[in-house]
C-alpha cells in the first residue's frame, strides 16, 4: 500500500485579522483506509498553441473512485494562463471550464472519472507563446 500525502497552506490578510488554512490528507482509495496505488506519473509539457489538449482521459481511472488530479502552470507569466476543465471547448463562457491557472498557480481536485468523454480533463493555453504545464493524476 502506497502512502501519499498532500498538504495545503493558505495565508491571507484579506480581513483585518490573519487568515490561515493548513490541512493535510492521505490519498486513500474510495471507502478504504488503504492508499491510492496508481499514478499517471508527473508530466511536463511545453505548449505553443491555443488548441485544447487532453491531460487525463476518463478511461484512466475508476468510475466513482477517489482519484485526484494535480495541475500547475509551471511558467511565470502574469498575463497568460491555462484554462482547465472538462472537454475540448474550454473558454471564457464555457460552463465546463473550471478555472484559470496563471504562472505558478496550481490546483488539486478530486476526479470522479465518469465513464464518458465528458469527464476527460483538458487544458487550453490563452496564447500561442510558449507556456509550460505540469500535471499528475493519483488514480484509483
Amino acid at each position, binding site marked *: 500500500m502506497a502512502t501519499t500525502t498532500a498538504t495545503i497552506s493558505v495565508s*491571507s490578510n484579506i480581513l483585518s485579522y490573519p487568515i490561515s488554512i493548513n490541512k493535510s490528507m492521505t490519498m486513500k482509495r474510495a471507502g478504504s483506509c488503504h492508499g491510492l496505488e496508481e499514478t499517471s506519473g508527473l508530466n511536463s509539457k511545453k505548449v505553443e498553441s491555443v488548441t485544447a489538449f487532453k491531460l487525463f482521459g476518463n478511461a484512466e481511472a475508476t468510475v466513482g473512485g477517489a482519484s485526484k488530479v494535480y495541475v500547475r502552470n509551471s511558467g511565470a507569466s502574469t498575463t497568460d494562463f491555462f*484554462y482547465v476543465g472538462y472537454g475540448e471547448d474550454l473558454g471564457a*463562457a464555457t460552463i465546463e471550464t473550471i*478555472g484559470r491557472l496563471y504562472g505558478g498557480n496550481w490546483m488539486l481536485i*478530486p476526479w470522479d472519472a465518469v465513464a464518458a468523454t465528458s469527464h476527460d480533463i483538458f487544458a487550453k493555453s490563452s496564447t500561442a507563446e510558449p507556456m509550460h504545464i505540469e500535471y499528475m493524476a493519483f488514480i484509483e
Partner: protein
Amino acid sequence: MATTTASLAISSSDLQPGNRLSINASSLLMKTGLTEGLEILDAGTGELTVAMSTKKLNDALGTADTSNWMYLANHATDDTNYIEVGLHDTIIGRLYAGDWMFTPWNMSDAAAEWSIEAEGGTQKYEYAFFKSTYVLANSAQANNSDGTPDVNP
C-alpha cells in the same frame, strides 16, 4: 493590497518505487489581470446530512471569466463517507473523509455554481472562497421609507 498565498506539498516514498515523489508549489492569488490581490473572502463551516440531497455551496455572482479560488475540506472521519462535489451540472469528484480540494473558479456564467451532497452519513465541511468580484443579490425586504423594496440599479 491584500496578499493571499497558497502553497502545496505532495510527497510519497512508495507510490513510484525507486522514485521518491516530492512536489512543492506556491503562488500568489491575484485578481484577473494580476496587478491586484484578491480582496473578497467568503468562508465558513457547515454540516451536510444525506437527507439534504444536493445543496448549493456558492453562486457564481461575480464577474464571469475571472480569477477566483475555492478551498473545500471534508472533516468526516468515517472512511466510507464522502461529499460529492459538482460544478453546474458536472460531477467533479468525491471528497472522502479527511480530503480537501483547492481549485480556480472561472465563474463562466451565472449557472457555474458549486454544489455539494453528502453520501453515506452526516458530514462536516469547511470552505473558503477567494474572489475577484462579487455582486450582492437583491433583497426582497422593504427597506425604503414608503415600505417598498429597494431595487438595486
